[in-house]
């Protein structure tokens, strides 16, 4: 009896018909799961890690103090910092040159975590396809420009900032600090 049933299933192409029923069902209840990408974009998650950027304080001065910690934290050696003394102020340093080779970046966000003054930020930009990959070797001006256009209100990611670093963060002293 069992074999007869199997045999009947074989000659009536039962399995194939079941599969064809499934595909026809999808054709009739047509609900596409795809998005028409350049026209429709999916909403990004809140903690999306996109293009890196250098940030400024409210008054327009750069946050970066040239400490090289981001360079040390970076697993793919994306960042190169040339640190220098602020002319006329021997106690302060800044990054004279700051390069990021975004062809190597894997968007892990470790540089952002490492930064003591919250000078680095991850924007929500991801459409960085270019024809010449040398265009992905970004200098300080470009990184600051990305930061300016992505964070016009310069109060991002304060929650990540350690209280000990708030000393440097003159612009945000009016914001209540988190308890340690």
């Amino acid at each position, binding site marked *: 009896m069992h074999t007869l049933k199997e045999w009947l299933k074989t000659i009536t192409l039962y399995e194939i018909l079941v599969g064809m029923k499934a595909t026809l069902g999808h054709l009739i209840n*047509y609900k596409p799961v795809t998005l028409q990408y350049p026209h429709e974009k999916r909403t990004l998650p809140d903690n999306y890690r996109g293009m890196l950027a250098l940030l400024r304080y409210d008054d327009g001065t750069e946050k970066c103090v040239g400490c090289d910690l981001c360079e040390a934290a970076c697993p793919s050696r994306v960042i190169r910092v040339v640190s220098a003394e602020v002319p006329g102020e021997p106690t302060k340093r800044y990054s004279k040159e700051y390069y990021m080779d975004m062809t190597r970046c894997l968007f892990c966000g470790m540089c952002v975590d490492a930064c003591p003054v919250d000078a680095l930020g991850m924007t929500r930009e991801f459409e960085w396809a270019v024809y010449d990959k040398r265009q992905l070797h970004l200098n300080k001006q470009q990184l600051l420009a990305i930061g300016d256009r992505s964070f016009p209100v310069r109060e991002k990611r304060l929650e990540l900032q350690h209280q000990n670093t708030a000393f440097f963060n003159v612009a945000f002293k009016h914001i209540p600090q988190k308890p340690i």
Partner: protein
Amino acid sequence: MAELGLRLTLTFIQIAVIVLIVIVTVLLLTLAERKVLGWMQDRMGPMEVGPYGSLQPFADAIKLFFKEDIVPAGANKLLFTVAPLLALIPAFIGFAVIPWGPDLTFEFDGLTMKPFIISDINIGILYILAFASIGAYGIILGGWASNSKYSLLGGLRSAAQIISYELNIGLAIIGVLIMAGSLSLVKITGAQSGWFWNWYVFAFPAPQIFALVVYVISAVAETNRVPFDLPEAESELVAGFFTEYSGLRFAFFYLAEYANMVLVSCVASAMFLGGWNAPYPGTILDLLGLSSLAWIENTMWFAFKTYSFLFLFFWLRATLPRLRYDQLMRFGWKVMLPIALANIVVTSIAVYLFPKG
């Protein structure tokens, strides 16, 4: 002389119209296939060119037309050029004997012609089979002339596959031929008029349902479609026999594949599903008193049957994975062939026991 010229002109007009219809159908098919496949796979298919991607075939045609035509180094230039034509021409030539509509005659300047039948030769179906086999040469030669291992393997696979499955197509058809007593597609279609149980799938002494199944499966295999698309298996052979082809020559292969699909669908609907006959006797337009327009209904029925087969091809492609090569051969020779042969025996006995009229 003038009469001959007129007759030639009329025939050429007929041929031009049929070729135009086939090419338009092929254009439609390329879009319809991608759309239907997309819908079945929860995608949208082409959406960019024109509203809902409706102009995609034209964009494809223009793109292929302006692509660089590359002949690979070491290729046999002559055969490399001839192969696409050898694939394309047999695919189109078979349409000459398909009855597209009722067997009407039409008077024009003292000449009688049949507007829906280009030529009613008495070996119609044999002619189609013969030219379909020549199409295999295009594929094999294209694969060999490309001087590429993928092309060669694709061509050889295609040769083996087409030989195996052509046999099954030929044998599956024989049941219908025994019942109709003719090789002419016009006579075969004409013999299926009346109610739909006169169609040879359901016809009285020996319903050809198994023959239809064998024919459809073998036709899918012969046109190199999924699940029998081993000659152009992407995951194994890049693109099979047309790996090295580009531009217009590639377009010719593409066109040939789709024209072959249309041809086997036309043959299937003409031989098994009554061709242009409606599933009821006569036509509705005839009953409404529009006898002169009845041919519209008949051609629409033919188109509907043909497009149903083409939809079945897309449907199978969306559903089934590709067969392994030994499975393909075993299925062809050990399953399809015995069924087709048994069908011939049963049909012959049935027709002998219940002779017509």
